[in-house]
């Protein structure tokens, strides 16, 4: 039985590798290299999906041992339920993104497409391998490969200044984050044993403080990659910089590898810890969710906006995981498993709708060559199908029933409430409800944000020639997006099916009594009810006959045009003003009286928000480091006598110090 899986796995790997290498050989013809780069990815993704589902549903894990590849490093493939889940998610998204790329990358025929597909396939390959290896060193190798490949993907359009900046920030922050990950692993292993099994075995014998140290390192390290506040700074600049199909994969699943790492290290390897671990994760989640969505609401760059929403959703996922960790520390395995499963469910859902949205944004960019939503508008007439797909994504990410975003957030709500109802202490009871309120705030802000995003970019009149000249994206791109949209609805209608299989995954991480399957939730009936009512009303609406008459929008007597429409900036202004204590908006209004002394001829209005974290945390740090280094350089001042003096003094000091 396992032999088949091995074969499948190796076929998938070979497909990815061929997708990486073949285009380099056929780099002469771009279309050829594009096809060679994308199609194997689709096939391999399908295989990976099958493997992952198998590993997720089949009770005993698939173990493949490949022997010692490096001194003391034994490479083993371990597809247990957790790994299977993540492998399935990654492969599914990657496959669809590859399909989409066939159409999308045609935009870049001038660029080096072979290089793109090399990096892209390597990226997906390392992502898939990161979640299924069972040795920390190999994990780190593929983790870093993933970072490196995505770095080169982010800097694909390196001719733009901000893309270079974004890429640099990305690689620096993730690399520094990796330091913490490595520390976490090695503090845990404390020696030459690098296998996850050894780590798990050793974690029992560790002292509480050491465990907390490992926890902190893991949280910082993986948190950097996942983009939790305040370590999220690279995310909103790096994701938009990449081509949209890549951003879809990065935002959809690459962040999830960090979530995988957290679960693996913190919950699986470390086991139950003190309750404050979970509390901290929960708090981090809340902060990330609210800050992320607030900044998203201020963005007018469609992809930056989506990137900030990734920060938000990672926060929501962490809320679920945090609740699970708290239950775990209270040794309540059943609610713990449910909470973790809720988090995983949101992982899946976010992967689906976020990549759907990014691909939609990519189609918009493909059609209009702009990402600034102030220049868009009226696209629902130009590209109707893309509009529908994007709307589905928008509704799902705003957690609106009956779509999947609502389904997973519902489960997280339940877990947080369970936190309060456990009645362990007044503090936690209050905390649970407050966390729910925070989640509600996040949901409302997200809804506001996507009303803005969809309404401004797809509805009303085109605000620029670019938008006016748009046309529907090529079919292959729409085909790539459609399954995601379908999944958004399907997972929203029958969440209990997914939840039950995810409960199996969670039960593997949080061992306990085997759980009763969740009862069928109400979503389906609710959806049916809605559908019936709306259909009935639709019938009723047309009862007395007569169609809707079309006329110009009423503009108080004058003919309205695009310049009178509500812009994204003006849409978000009330929120900007209400939440100014976080956003710190600065507005400058300058009036130009050049024409007439009393009547202003032209007004210039500008309101920009300040990134508090960058200005007060990162900038000082960077400047301090540079200044210190400049100071330090003076020891190499070019004077040979001084140099000889160094040697001399060193010798004398050592001689004195010997005893």
């Amino acid at each position, binding site marked *: 039985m396992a032999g088949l899986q091995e074969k499948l796995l190796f076929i998938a790997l070979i497909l990815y590798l061929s997708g990486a290498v073949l285009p380099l050989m056929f780099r002469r013809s771009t279309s050829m290299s594009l096809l060679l780069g994308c199609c194997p990815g689709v096939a391999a993704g399908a295989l990976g999906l099958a493997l992952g589902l198998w590993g997720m549903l089949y009770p005993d894990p698939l173990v493949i041992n490949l022997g010692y590849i490096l001194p003391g490093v034994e490479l083993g493939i371990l597809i247990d339920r957790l790994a299977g889940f993540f492998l399935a998610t990654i492969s599914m998204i990657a496959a669809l993104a590859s399909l989409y790329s066939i159409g999308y990358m045609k935009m870049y025929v001038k660029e080096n497409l072979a290089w793109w597909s090399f990096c892209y396939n390597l990226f997906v390959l390392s992502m898939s391998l990161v979640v299924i290896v069972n040795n920390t060193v190999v994990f780190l190798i593929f983790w870093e490969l993933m970072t490196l490949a995505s770095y080169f993907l982010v800097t694909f359009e390196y001719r733009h200044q901000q893309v270079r900046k974004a890429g640099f920030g990305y690689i620096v922050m993730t690399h520094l984050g990796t330091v913490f990950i490595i520390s976490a692993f090695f503090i845990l292993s404390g020696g030459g044993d690098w296998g996850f099994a050894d780590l798990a075995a050793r974690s029992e014998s560790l002292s509480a403080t050491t465990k907390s140290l490992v926890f902190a390192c893991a949280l910082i390290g993986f948190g950097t990659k996942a983009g939790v506040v305040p370590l999220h700074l690279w995310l909103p600049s790096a994701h938009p910089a990449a081509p949209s199909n890549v951003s879809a994969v990065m935002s959809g699943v690459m962040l999830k590898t960090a979530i995988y790492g957290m679960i693996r290290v913190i919950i699986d390897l470390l086991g139950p810890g003190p309750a404050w671990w979970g509390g901290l994760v929960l708090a981090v989640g809340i902060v990330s969710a609210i800050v992320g969505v607030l900044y998203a609401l201020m963005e007018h760059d469609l992809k930056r906006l989506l990137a900030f929403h990734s920060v938000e959703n990672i926060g929501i996922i962490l809320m679920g995981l945090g609740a699970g960790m708290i239950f775990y520390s209270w040794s309540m395995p059943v609610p713990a498993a449910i909470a973790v499963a809720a988090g995983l469910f949101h992982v899946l859902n976010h992967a689906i709708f976020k990549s759907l949205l990014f691909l939609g944004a990519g189609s918009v960019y493909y059609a209009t060559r702009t990402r600034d939503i102030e220049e868009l508008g009226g696209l*629902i007439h130009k590209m*109707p199908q893309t509009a529908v797909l994007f709307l589905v994504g928008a*509704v799902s990410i*705003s957690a*609106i*029933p009956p779509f999947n975003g609502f389904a997973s957030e*519902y489960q997280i*709500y339940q877990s947080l*409430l369970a936190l*309060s*109802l456990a009645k362990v202490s*007044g503090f936690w009871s209050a905390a649970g*409800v*407050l966390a*729910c*309120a*925070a989640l*509600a*705030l996040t*949901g*409302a802000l997200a*809804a*506001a944000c996507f*009303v803005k995003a*969809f*309404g*401004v970019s797809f*509805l*009303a*009149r085109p605000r620029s020639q670019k938008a006016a000249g748009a046309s529907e994206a090529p079919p292959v791109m729409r085909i790539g997006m459609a399954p995601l949209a379908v999944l958004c609805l399907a997972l929203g209608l029958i969440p209990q099916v997914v939840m039950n299989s995810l409960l199996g995954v969670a039960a593997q991480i949080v061992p306990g009594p085997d759980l009763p399957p969740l009862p069928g939730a*109400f979503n389906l*009936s*609710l959806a049916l*009810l809605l559908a019936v*009512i*709306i259909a009935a*009303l*639709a019938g009723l*609406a047309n009862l*007395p006959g007569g169609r*809707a*008459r*079309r*006329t*110009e*929008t*009423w*503009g108080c007597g004058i003919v*309205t045009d695009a310049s*009178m*429409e*509500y812009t994204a900036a*003006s*849409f*978000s*202004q*009330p*929120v900007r*003003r*209400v939440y100014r204590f976080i956003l710190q908006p600065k507005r400058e209004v300058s009036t130009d009286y050049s024409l007439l002394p009393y009547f202003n001829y032209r007004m210039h209005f500008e309101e920009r928000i300040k990134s508090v974290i960058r200005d007060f945390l990162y900038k000082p740090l960077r400047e301090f480091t540079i200044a210190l280094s400049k100071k330090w350089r003076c020891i190499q001042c070019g004077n040979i006598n001084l140099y000889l003096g160094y040697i001399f003094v060193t010798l004398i000091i050592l001689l004195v110090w010997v005893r």
Partner: protein
Amino acid sequence: MTVNILSVLGQMAFLLLMAPLVNGVIKKAKALTQCRRGPGILQSYFDIVKFLRRDPVVSVQTSWITLLTPLVCLGAYLAAGSIIPLWDHRGIVFGDLIAFTYLFALARFFLGLAGLEPGSAFGGMGASREMMIATLVEPVMVLGLFGLVLTAGSTDLGALAGAGWNPAGALSFIGLMIVTVAETGRIPVDNPDTHLELTMVHEAMLLEYAGRQLGFLHWAAMLKQLVLLALLVHLFWPQPTGIPVAAALGLIAAKVTALGLGLALTESVLAKMRLFRLPELMAGGAAFCLLAVLSNSIM
């Protein structure tokens, strides 16, 4: 099964028919408190019928979203209403407190889109304000409702019946009343009777609507108000059990009307607030709900 479906339909019909009446009562009471004669109690029915007769006129900018929105709004509020077990609890589960809250979000989402679609400045303004207010209202609403969940122990509305009938409940009641005022777009948050662009929120989004669709949207607004009041009644003013359906309905109607009168009174004694003073009002509501939560979680 059939009985269940019938009862669901019955409850919907009840809500649909009840909503204009409650609105009319509130209007009348308001007028009387302001020493006006005011329209008749049944005026809202006449309005709706009038609107439903007319064919819609829509802007050329609009797409299917504008046509769909009224139906979605009405449907969402109906579904929300049918979640509340007005009489003895039924077999089919359409959702719980969370679903209830998010159905409102569904309606709001589409209303916002519809406001933006015609491309007139009013609609956009209304949409943006509505969304901002929602970000203030929803947390408070969740805080208040889930404070009650702490006592009831479940988010199921059947279990929650009368969960607020305790001292802590009084606090959350005040908080939720403020939420209701904001949600129903009444003074001091919004003024349902104005068409002055500086103060419009809800009406601004409806500005481009006409005829049948406008009727639906007005109806939806009344329904929303009724559903919220009914929820408050269900939570804070428990029904005596074991009474026939008709009596239960009568009681509900009475209680809802009473609450509506309360709303009318508050509305006529208060003055409209500036938009950016709302956070303070909501903070007040949040404070009450928070107190309720704390007292519940300490006990």
